[in-house]
């Protein structure tokens, strides 16, 4: 480690190489605080060339390296290696170019998601993928996780909005992957690879035109089944809203207690539907939506930005709120086909009763992305284990219904052991071919995504209280 550190110091300015044990601990986990490891050494490069040199040194020494953006990941993807180098992009925060004529911006990986939108909002543009952590998470982290947001039902994920990436390959070459290039879609393979195929050092994103009109509707239903039926009917009517979000009674209760969002009283489920686009189209869709939601006992329509924010407030604070009503909880992130939602929700309810563990449901109903909150009291003996069983059983339900073990938070270290449940050994081996082509020595973020033996007694994804980012108002949790 010492000769490695000396080599790194010869490449980077003094204050860009961190070895002080106290400062190293700042980086020992990401948003999933359950997994911790103190990095061997942390570097804060300023340029792509420096990243490449650091990676080359790691190759010379045969030590692993892990990229880290803002550390908001919820699957332990940026968990460091004690025997390796953590490469943090927080100094690489320049917006290099804004080219509205071509609807694109070129940015460094440490730039936050929201900063891109803020740079172009005045001129009627925005960057579409909007993870709830957008105020803080980095675009490099978004690329690595193929992040989504509430609006990806209509607008897609990071991979649909990235035009090109300059990357440092795991053996230290600077290579540009561009959608325009002929040949294999390496850019598509790289996005969502969770830092295992190299480090993004420059990202060209596509900018979107702000829509002419936005209409946000809150529909309150007696039961979650009715809410689910409305979702199906909306899709069945050929409407693709910008977002369809749903909350169940327990989630509403928690949100109410925390932020007094004043959702209709007695609702078994609320649905938030946002329509956007050309005004004439939004108006027409809104008329049909009102008909479809005729079973709702209350329908609220936001007249302006302030009312829209009020409607979203309850939904956006639901996670933090749940953190306030339960000493500990696991946020699950699974996906089911939208039409399986009613059956899966009923099964979650059964699981909850069987194990005596409360589950609050808050989810992206439009694309079947569940974020069940598995609540428990960690002071109660055995409760953590039962919560873990419920949380794992929910993922099994997702797989059984043809869904996925993760819709947006990634596999990281947290879910790698679930990968063999979703994929066969041949599927995983084939993915390894890609890994080996990019990273033959396995130095780039090893131990993530693909299964490795699990440590005894490891409980997945447990959180206590409110996430500090949420608490400080810097991020919302969806």
């Amino acid at each position, binding site marked *: 480690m010492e000769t490695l550190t000396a080599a790194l110091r010869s490449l980077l300015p003094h204050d860009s190489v961190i070895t002080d044990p106290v400062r190293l601990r700042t980086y020992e986990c990401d948003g999933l605080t359950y997994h911790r490891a103190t990095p061997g050494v942390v570097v804060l490069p300023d340029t792509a060339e420096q990243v490449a040199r650091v990676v080359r040194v790691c190759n010379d020494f045969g030590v692993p390296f892990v990229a880290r953006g803002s550390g908001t990941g919820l699957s332990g993807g940026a968990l460091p290696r004690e025997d390796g180098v953590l490469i943090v992009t927080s100094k690489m925060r320049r917006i290099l170019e804004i080219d509205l004529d071509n609807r694109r911006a070129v940015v460094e990986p440490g730039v936050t998601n929201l900063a891109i939108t803020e740079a172009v909002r005045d001129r009627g543009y925005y960057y579409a993928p909007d993870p709830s952590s957008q105020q803080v998470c980095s675009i490099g982290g978004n690329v690595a996780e193929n992040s989504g947001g509430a609006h990806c039902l209509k607008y897609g994920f990071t991979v649909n909005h990235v035009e090109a990436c300059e990357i440092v390959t795991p053996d230290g070459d600077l290579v540009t992957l561009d959608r325009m290039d002929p040949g294999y879609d390496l850019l598509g393979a790289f996005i969502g690879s969770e830092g295992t195929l190299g480090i993004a050092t420059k990202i060209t994103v596509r900018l979107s035109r702000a829509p002419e009109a936005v209409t946000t509707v809150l529909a309150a239903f007696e039961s979650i089944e009715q809410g689910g039926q409305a979702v199906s009917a909306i899709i069945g009517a050929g409407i693709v809203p910008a977002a369809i979000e749903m909350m169940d009674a327990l989630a509403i209760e928690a949100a109410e207690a925390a932020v007094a969002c004043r959702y209709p009283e007695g609702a078994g489920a609320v649905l938030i539907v946002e329509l956007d686009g050309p005004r004439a189209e939004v108006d027409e869709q809104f008329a049909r939506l009102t008909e479809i939601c005729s079973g709702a006992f209350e329908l609220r329509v936001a007249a302006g930005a302030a009312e829209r924010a009020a409607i979203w407030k309850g939904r956006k604070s639901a996670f933090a709120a749940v953190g306030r009503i339960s000493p500990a909880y696991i946020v699950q992130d699974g996906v089911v086909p939208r039409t399986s939602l009613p059956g899966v929700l009923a099964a979650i309810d059964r699981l909850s009763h069987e194990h005596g563990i409360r589950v609050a449901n808050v989810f992206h109903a439009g694309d079947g992305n569940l974020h069940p909150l598995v609540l428990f009291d960690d002071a109660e003996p055995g409760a953590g284990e039962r919560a873990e069983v419920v949380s794992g059983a929910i993922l099994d339900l997702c797989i059984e219904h043809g869904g996925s073990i*993760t819709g947006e938070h990634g596999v990281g270290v947290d879910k790698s052991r679930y990968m063999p449940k979703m994929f066969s050994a041949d599927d995983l081996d084939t993915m390894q071919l890609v890994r080996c082509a990019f990273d033959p020595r396995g130095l780039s973020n090893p131990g993530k995504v693909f299964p490795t033996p699990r440590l005894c007694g490891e409980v997945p994804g447990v959180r206590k209280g409110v996430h500090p980012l949420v608490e400080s108002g810097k991020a919302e949790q969806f």
Partner: protein
Amino acid sequence: MLADTGVTIRQADADDAVNGVRPRWVALPETVEEISAVLRACAEQDLAAVPAGGGTKLHWGAPPERCDVLIDLCCMNSLIEHAAGDLVVRAQAGLTMDALAAALAEQGQELALDPPFKEHTTVGGTLATATAGPRAFRYGTPRDLLIGITVVLPDGTVARSGGRVVKNVAGYDLGKLFTGSQGTLGVIAEATFRLHPLPAERRWLVATTAPAGDVLLRLAASQAEPSAVEIDCPDGKEATVAVLVEGAAAEQRALGLREVLGEGTITAEAPEWWGLILRDDVLLETRFPPARAADALAAAGEAGFAFRGSAAAGRAYLELWGEVAEEELAAAVTRLRGRIEALGGRLNVLATPYEGVDRWGQVSGLPLMRRVKERFDPGRRMSPGRFLGGI
């Protein structure tokens, strides 16, 4: 050997030639397992294989270095599942795009690619060539609409990635890698796509003079939200522009676009050239920053190519109508590539009868692509030499 697999095999004839290279046999697998059996047999015997869908674009790309077996997917033509409520469809690779479209239309849905629904074009061929039509401006290209894939590797391994839900970030996305891989990594056996509801209405605004660059930009950025902005310029001089609006209030939005364009006729039918490649003995594909569409158009015209394509999405096909000698074409391609690359774009030759023409420009990721090919196909048995850099 091949016959022992139990898969239907026939002797190849001259019509089965892949860009002039005649295979010995044609295999007609009916299941994923049969594709696997054929490829395993090929691996044992070191036979080179080329997958084929409808065979309409087998002349795209370089001729294979060798070709023993043509794997014809025509028998794998079923629609496996259309989950209309989930806006998802899963189909076998040999299903034709028009059969797929017809089935989806029954439920008021579509796969938002624009193949002209030639009766032979298959799902697998469309993916393997990654062809994109006018509406890619709004909906993206095949890689954006593909959410799950089943492939068979050259050693017979069957691998799946993605799934049947739109939102899914578990594992690497093999679908991206196989989209546009031109049959060089393995055989695409099944694919799952996200669908869109069929738009209630469609209107085209058509004007006969190509607008200046900044008008194109204003069309693309218009809040009337066009789905496509196309230019057709067959002779390098006379150009037509057509803008498509889809969905509710299409007529009204088209009127708004006419104000931007300053002229044009609004129709409910596409212009007859919409999304069509008419001749592809010599066919080039160019991509460019959308703001440079007018420059790309001018460069193509001066080099003697017809230009047709998605101005707003930065992609167009260049056709050559007359006869052209090898050296002349090679020189024209090199010159035009120089000009397009100076605009920040790319120029590839999709089809040419001549070996002396450089089909591909510079690609920064080529060494990585070679490594991917080596891992997936170390024996170089899948469509060897068909793709860029001799992959």
